[in-house]
């Protein structure tokens, strides 16, 4: 019998049976294995994860007062603070009912200092916390004592953690925990992923030549969700992301269900949908808004109202993707295509937490390409296809942060630390040489010009151990721990004009908005935020002052924030669907007509064919490339392609990218040039584009600067905050850019630049994905010269004019600004 009597009594009293996977997990863990549990929401995952430690603690019994110090028994790690708090509440209930001798506490950034101190002296049995807190605890001199009795680490929502830098940091923390408590077992809880073995290895120590991984329990089943694509009598637009056409249908659907969760992909979409719903909300349905930029207080209010079932609908971004139990959500509406099959599955799982009842979901495509993408996502969900990204290699900036943390905990032996670090799956690839360079970076910045030896942060003792030079370094580390680097944000505060027209003092705080967005605004501009049209008044200290805007139409339509690239899997499915007219019958009439027109006027590309259309329009010549690799990869392709076209003398003027295609335009006849083979398209799209051209472009890319800034902060080169001297986000941005320029021009092989390039190639620039595409389309490029725009080209052509301007073009625009005003300036400033 696995379960002690109090548990059996409790289950019996509730009239429940322990579920098979709960007992199975318990038995494996009791057998000494680390385990991964993959289960849909509502399967009792949390209880399953805690069962081994609750049973173990019950068997151990209460520790009598006056006993020797006992460290924590179980560590629970969640990606969200709120989830840790929520779990405490949910766990206390059965523990209280059963009268178990178990002390449970949480520890997050919000935990008061006195309580944290007390936790160190007198640890609870189960500590519920976040990855950042684990890093802090491990960098403490008391870590060894605190964790020596650790039996279990429970990692919740593991799928969402492992692919990010937070996951990298956590994997290193886990490796350290194994050193401190060698018998420790890890229990991972995850939603369905594409490759469970990735996570299984992540949970177990890696050794060269050996194959260690956690055991796997997969709970399948649960009722199949009922997903449909919103049918509408309205015209589905060619382009755009607002789905405004479907607002009436969405509102109707909300009215027909008890509680609806409306997911969107970006904050600006959330604002737009929310505003439009309220414009037609004649029944005054309680509809709320929830996204990461809103004031925390407001978000908590919405969450509370939600769990008390007081709301009919919430419009939300990915902030509601994870974990916390809501009231009775009975439908999910996804506005815009979900961009990934697994993301859709997880979001649908947010509706209806009972496993045996089907979740209901409606997909609302925002444009015609999205209709196909939604259909592909729906098909994928039906067959249970998953497209979560692979775990990938651990990043070097995170490693640098960890190395400093370990020196703060206690002097380290580099050989032993290297062995420990490479036991973490994401860092199994790490060479000794790179590790040494990172240690050198932590000590003195790792510069070829050895200028800072005397200021070293960590130093080698005569015994060969690395230790921190002074206690200030540890303090600095504590203030900079973590991997979530916010872009510089300004508080948004509502103010009123007083009688004399001057701005009054502060009113209500509405939330935060990225500084780069505010920098684009002039006083008087209106924009949408927190469900209101706001008028920008100005910036005072670190606050963005706004007043009530009286226009209905905001002048500045949107600000970005949280855009997912189209997953490789869905992109492939869309290409398949496009290539196969027999599948077009399932699509709405308007989309079917559009595709059949494309077939008549141009062609539909085959699955692995790259279609390139060229056509004149106005005074310009266009080429549209249907690559289907997501906006980020297309942007990179656009940058590189325009360089090459320029070299071929074709004078490209600009480009614009969507998730599905890329349009490039110029003054020369691109179609004639390709037809005559000058240049050959095969040469133009050759993989060597990712060599010198990429390198040359990276020199100037602002995207790389942004990536560098994050790396520099995470690696500890630049402080996020400094003791006694809070830097504003802006100062960090400015200096990071300048530092990047200096470093690139003087030491291009510096380890932090290497870290930046690694990040960029998988992150913002999606270079890997682009490389895969270039090799896939080799020998499969079809050029279709047309005398006019094709139906398939319409969506991307509509994006022209909204494109961003980077790099070289910036100086061009500056010149334009100056030239316009040239005469003016001469009159004012010349003798």
């Amino acid at each position: 019998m696995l379960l002690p009597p109090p548990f059996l009594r409790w289950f019996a009293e509730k009239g429940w049976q322990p579920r098979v996977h709960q007992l199975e997990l318990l038995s494996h863990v009791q057998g000494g294995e680390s385990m991964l549990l993959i289960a849909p929401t509502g399967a009792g995952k949390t209880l399953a994860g805690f069962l081994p430690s609750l049973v173990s603690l019950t068997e151990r019994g209460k520790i009598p007062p006056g006993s020797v110090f006992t460290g924590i028994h179980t560590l629970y790690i969640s990606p969200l603070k709120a989830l840790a708090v929520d779990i405490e509440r949910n766990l206390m209930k059965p523990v209280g009912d059963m009268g178990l001798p178990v002390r449970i506490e949480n520890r997050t950034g919000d935990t008061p200092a006195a309580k944290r101190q007390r936790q160190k002296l007198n640890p609870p049995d189960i500590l519920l916390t976040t990855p950042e807190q684990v890093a802090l605890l491990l960098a403490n001199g008391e870590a060894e004592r605190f964790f020596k009795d650790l039996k279990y680490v429970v990692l919740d929502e593991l799928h969402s953690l492992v692919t990010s830098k937070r996951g990298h940091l956590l994997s290193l923390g886990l490796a350290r925990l194994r050193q401190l408590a060698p018998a420790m077992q890890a229990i991972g809880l995850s939603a369905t992923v594409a490759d469970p073995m990735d996570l299984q290895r992540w949970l177990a120590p890696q050794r060269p030549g050996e194959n260690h991984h956690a055991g796997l329990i997969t709970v399948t089943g649960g009722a199949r969700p009922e997903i449909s694509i919103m049918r509408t009598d309205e015209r589905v637009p060619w382009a755009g992301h607002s789905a405004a056409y479907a607002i009436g249908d969405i509102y109707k659907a909300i009215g027909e269900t008890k509680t609806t969760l409306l997911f969107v992909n970006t904050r600006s979409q959330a604002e737009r949908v929310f505003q439009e719903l309220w414009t037609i909300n004649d029944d005054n349905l309680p509809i709320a808004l929830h996204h990461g930029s809103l004031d925390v207080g407001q978000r908590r209010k919405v969450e509370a109202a939600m769990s008390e079932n007081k709301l009919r609908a919430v419009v939300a971004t990915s902030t509601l993707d994870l974990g916390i139990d809501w009231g009775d959500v009975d439908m999910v509406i996804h506005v815009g295509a979900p961009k990934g099959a697994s993301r859709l599955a997880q979001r649908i799982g947010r509706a209806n937490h009972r496993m045996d009842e089907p979740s209901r979901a409606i997909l609302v495509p925002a444009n015609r390409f999205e209709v196909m993408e939604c259909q592909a996502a729906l098909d994928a969900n039906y067959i249970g296809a998953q497209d979560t990204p692979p775990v990938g290699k651990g990043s070097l900036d995170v490693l640098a942060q960890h190395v400093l943390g370990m020196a703060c905990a206690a002097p380290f032996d580099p050989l032993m630390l290297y062995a420990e670090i490479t036991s973490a799956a994401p860092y199994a690839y790490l060479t000794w040489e790179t590790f040494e360079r990172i240690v050198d970076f932590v000590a003195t910045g790792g510069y070829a010009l050895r200028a800072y030896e005397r200021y070293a942060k960590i130093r080698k003792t005569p015994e060969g151990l690395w230790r921190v030079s002074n206690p200030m370094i540890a303090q600095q580390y504590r203030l900079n721990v973590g991997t979530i680097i916010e872009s510089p944000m300004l508080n948004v505060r509502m103010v009123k004009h007083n009688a004399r027209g001057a701005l009054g003092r502060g009113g209500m705080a509405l939330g935060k908005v990225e500084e780069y967005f505010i920098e684009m605004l002039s006083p008087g501009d209106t924009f949408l935020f927190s469900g209101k049209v706001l008028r920008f008044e100005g910036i005072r200290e670190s606050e963005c002052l706004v007043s009530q805007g009286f226009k209905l139409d905001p002048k500045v339509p949107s600000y970005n924030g949280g855009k997912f690239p189209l997953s490789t899997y869905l992109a492939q499915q869309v290409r398949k669907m496009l290539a196969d007219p027999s599948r077009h019958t399932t699509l709405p009439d308007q989309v079917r007509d559009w595709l059949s027109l494309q077939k008549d006027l141009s062609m539909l590309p085959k699955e692995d064919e790259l279609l390139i259309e060229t056509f004149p329009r106005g005074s310009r010549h266009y080429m549209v490339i249907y690559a289907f690799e997501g906006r980020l990869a297309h942007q990179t392709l656009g940058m590189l392609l325009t360089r090459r076209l320029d070299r071929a003398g074709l004078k490209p003027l600009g480009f614009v990218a969507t998730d599905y295609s890329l349009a490039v335009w110029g003054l020369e006849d691109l179609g004639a040039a390709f037809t005559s083979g000058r240049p050959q398209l095969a040469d133009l799209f050759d993989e060597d584009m990712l060599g010198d051209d990429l390198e040359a472009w990276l020199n100037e890319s602002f995207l790389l600067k942004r990536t560098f800034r994050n790396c520099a902060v995470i690696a500890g080169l630049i402080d996020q905050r400094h003791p006694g001297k809070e830097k504003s986000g802006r100062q960090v941005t400015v200096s990071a850019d300048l530092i990047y320029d200096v470093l690139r021009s003087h030491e291009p092989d510096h380890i932090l630049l290497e870290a930046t390039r690694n990040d960029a190639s998988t992150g913002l620039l999606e270079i890997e994905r682009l490389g895969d595409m270039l090799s896939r389309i080799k020998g499969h490029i079809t050029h279709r010269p047309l005398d006019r725009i094709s139906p398939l080209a319409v969506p991307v052509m509509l994006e022209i004019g909204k494109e961003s301007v980077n790099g070289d073009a910036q100086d061009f625009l500056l010149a334009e600004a100056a030239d316009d005003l040239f005469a003016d300036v001469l009159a004012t400033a010349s003798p």
Partner: protein
Amino acid sequence: MHRIAHAISALPDNPALSARIVVNGVIGVCDPLGGLYLPDLDILVVSDLHLEKGSAFARRGMMLPPYDTLATLRILDAVISRHNPKTVISLGDNFHDRVGSALMPELFRGMIETMARGREWIWINGNHDPDGTTALPGASMDELTHSGLIFRHEPALNATAGEIAGHLHPSATVRRREKYMRRACFASDGRRLIMPAFGVTTGGLDLRHQAMRGLFDHQNLVAHMLGRDRIYSVRFANLLG
């Protein structure tokens, strides 16, 4: 990278790429490398070099690249070679902190000595380096008055016409087609001039920031912005705020 790369390639002086201005009747040339040349006085003015900023941070545990001094001095060398002035005035915050000039590596000291050879060199004291410089050629002083111009580090609120100052690191922002570009700039209304920061790791403060309030006659204020290889002059009214 633009200034660093440009200084290394050291293009010859091209009047079309710089901006001619007049401050209190004295003609000046705003060089895209960030220096102001006064041809009638044969003076080159630079400001806010912030030399040894990297090592100042390293002493406090932030290991910024130790190449900033070298990069700044190379640009300085390029702009001095271009104008070959009789006098160089560095308008304060020449070093990032008080000990910077004393602790500066010999290599950099040698570079400054070479540049200063055969010229008059004046270090105006700034708030970062109020005690002057140690073991370097040239004279240190708090301010200097010359031919209707007054050179000081911090702009004075009620200054008489002809003030040339630094300290504020002015920058300006232009918006075009919904995109904005922000660059360091020379800021002048014809009465006074505030110099851009010359140091390569020195950030900027927008002309519309409250610290700039009351310094200029906005009607006549022009921002001479530092582009990749030329100056772009834009009137204050046409800047973004």
